[in-house]
């Protein structure tokens, strides 16, 4: 249920981009897609964001089917977390967009890629569930 699932404090290190995350999306025709993303950003207690830099299969799938599953790893203790998400909106301005944009720019500029890694939008997802491995099957 929206707004009821809160991200625990101990997951935060996993949302710093230290270890790439794995994301699973599904097209409308049911074909799944698994890929990695560099960082899952925390937005607030029950929202996270993904950067939208390139038109990829992930983006296309999410626009068709908002339900997504993400696995992130805490680099401090290597605990694995599984998050069920639902795509909510894409922000192209505002504090969240700026924060992500700046971080992207900082990294890109250090590798001589300024202007190539351009943030098109911050895709905001509602957190539907959070589970820490070893997870139990409900």
């Amino acid at each position, binding site marked *: 249920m929206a707004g009821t699932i809160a991200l625990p404090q101990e997951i935060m290190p996993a949302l710093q981009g230290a*270890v790439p995350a794995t994301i699973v999306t599904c097209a409308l025709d049911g074909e799944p897609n698994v890929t990695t993303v560099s960082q899952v950003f925390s937005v607030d207690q029950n929202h996270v964001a993904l950067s939208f830099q390139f038109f990829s299969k992930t983006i296309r799938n999410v626009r068709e089917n908002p339900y997504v599953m993400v696995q992130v790893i805490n680099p401090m203790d290597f605990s694995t977390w599984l998050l069920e998400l639902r795509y909510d909106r894409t922000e192209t301005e505002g504090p969240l967009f700026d924060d992500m944009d700046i971080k992207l720019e900082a990294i890109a500029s*250090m590798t001589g890629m300024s202007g190539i890694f351009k943030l098109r939008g911050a895709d905001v997802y509602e957190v539907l569930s959070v589970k820490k491995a070893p997870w139990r099957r409900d």
Partner: protein
Amino acid sequence: MSVPGDNQPASGSMRTLMIDNQKVIDELNARIQRRDQEVKIIQQISSEINSTLDLEHMLGIILDSLDRVLGFKHCMILLSDDAAASLSVAALRGYENQQPGATVPVGQGPIGVAARRRRVVRMAAMAAQMGYVAAVRGEMGHEKAQVKLPGLANVQSQMAIPLVVKDRLVGVLAVESAAINAFDALDELLLSIVANQVASAIDNARLYLREQERSQLLDNTNRELSQLNETLESKVNARTAELTEALGDLERRKVQHEELLARMAPRELIPLMVEDRLQAVRLNATVMFTDLSGFTSFSAGMEPDEVFAHLNHYFAWLGDAISRYRGYVNKTMGDGTMILFGVPEPSLSHATDAVLAALTLQSDVGTTISLNMRIGISSGVITAGMLGPRNKSMYDVLGETVNVAQRMESSAPLGGIVVTAATADLVRPYFLLETLPEQEIKGLSKMTNFRVVGLRKLTDDPRRVDPSGRFAAMATPLQQEIEAFKAQHFDSVNFVSIQARDGAFYHNETVAILALALLRELRGHPQLGTAASQLDEARLLRFALLHDIGKRTLDTARLNRRGLTAEERAALRTDLERATAETLDRLELGELASALPPFYRFEAQELTGEIDMLTEIVGVADIYDALTAPKFYKGTPWSIRGALEDMMRMPFAINRPRPILAAFAELMRPAAATLTSGRSAKPVLD
């Protein structure tokens, strides 16, 4: 856990509740404590930062505080350059092998982006992210080209806070860590607050530094400027000195040239001569020839240079006397001279000037050389101009008058002055002349000439001393008395020379004679006797003799000008009074100057009421002599009777009885004359 009563659900839930409450309270306390500590930290850092304006010292304090108080082990402060194109590390802490001075281009890395975007950049897990970017980059076919930036080599976490004051980027505060996720939101908040303080402190320090640099620069500039000024001044001084010297040289040369030219022509003509515009003119003038009798035998046994020394000494003395009477020594011929009066500027007094000069020469020649002079004078029309071959032309005069003057000189007796009839006519009112027997002058027709005896004194003039009047009897002894007084007190004053300026010969002596006569007359007066007896006789004489002595410094042309307007006459009177006061001062008779103002007011006919006795006595004598004495510019002077009646009609005499004037008129009038008083209806003509 086995606790008594553990099983009782009610107390168990109560305990849980209590424990939960305690947890909340502890958490709250911890948060309050942390807040409290944060505030303290910020206050501490703030006060440390603001303790200095020295930028380097301040940056050290800031970084020390970040480490010691907040626990940031690796931190650096970068300052932006003026163009805001790059940042350079101004201070750092916690880095080995790194020095201040490294630069970060704006826009590069977390620090560069923080500067460009003016936003806090908080990064974590940077190595992984960079690896990801590099991987993408490789996929895209780009070369790997990591930018070298100052900081930790193994940096994982970085926080870069822009230092902004009033929309101006001062620099960036950066902290780093090798830990993957070292900084959280609270760190960001704390550091942001500190950064605000740091930014304004740095800004103040930089402003202060810039102000110091500016004032240093200003000092330097001022010093350079004053050095320049000094150099300039000394250069200007040197140049001015050079120019002054050159100018002085030029002036000296000009004077030398003028001196040379002055040997050829009168000084006044030099400008015309230089421009070659001097034209021959005809003028009325007087020509004088002098000769030193017996000079040839006098100099017979002398060495040549001795002869020249004697003669030059004589000519120097002669030249002085001649210039005193406005004459021009035109040429010398052996021991003889030819002298011109009334050239190049026409003058009214050329004849009297010549005769006076001649009298002076004859009376004084013995002081210069023990020889006698002959002097001949002739007046009339002469032609003057430059004469002679071009390389030897001199100012010269031509005409019958010149030839006659030379004849007068050769016919003159030793020590004598002979003048023609034309000259005699011009000078007769002022000089006593002796008619010489008619004689044939070489090459000319028969002429009657005159020998100058001397200056005509009051008693030598029957027109002014009526033989029938009471004054006639006392005139001669009074004149002798005044002559003696003058010789005794004013031997140094050359009255003749001063009087020659406007032809008022023997005027001062005459005023003194008349004033003395009147004073003595008044002593027997029934009303004025006492006052007259108390008046200082010597002071009266001094004042009578010197009342217009300032004439000596006034311009002769102005003194002799005819038809003055009332204003011009008043101005002349004022100037004469001032010049007289100055001369009295020079004669150490400043005390007499106090008598000048009333006297000059009387002369201006401004006094109509009470008049002091000194003023009235000398004033009456002065006006009377002015009316009766001959003047160059006057026709026949007033008769005694005419003058006295004129005086009685003057404003001062009209409205009240003037016993002094009355006594004077009584003294001077011809015995047979009945005077018409000023109060009668009609003047009586003589």
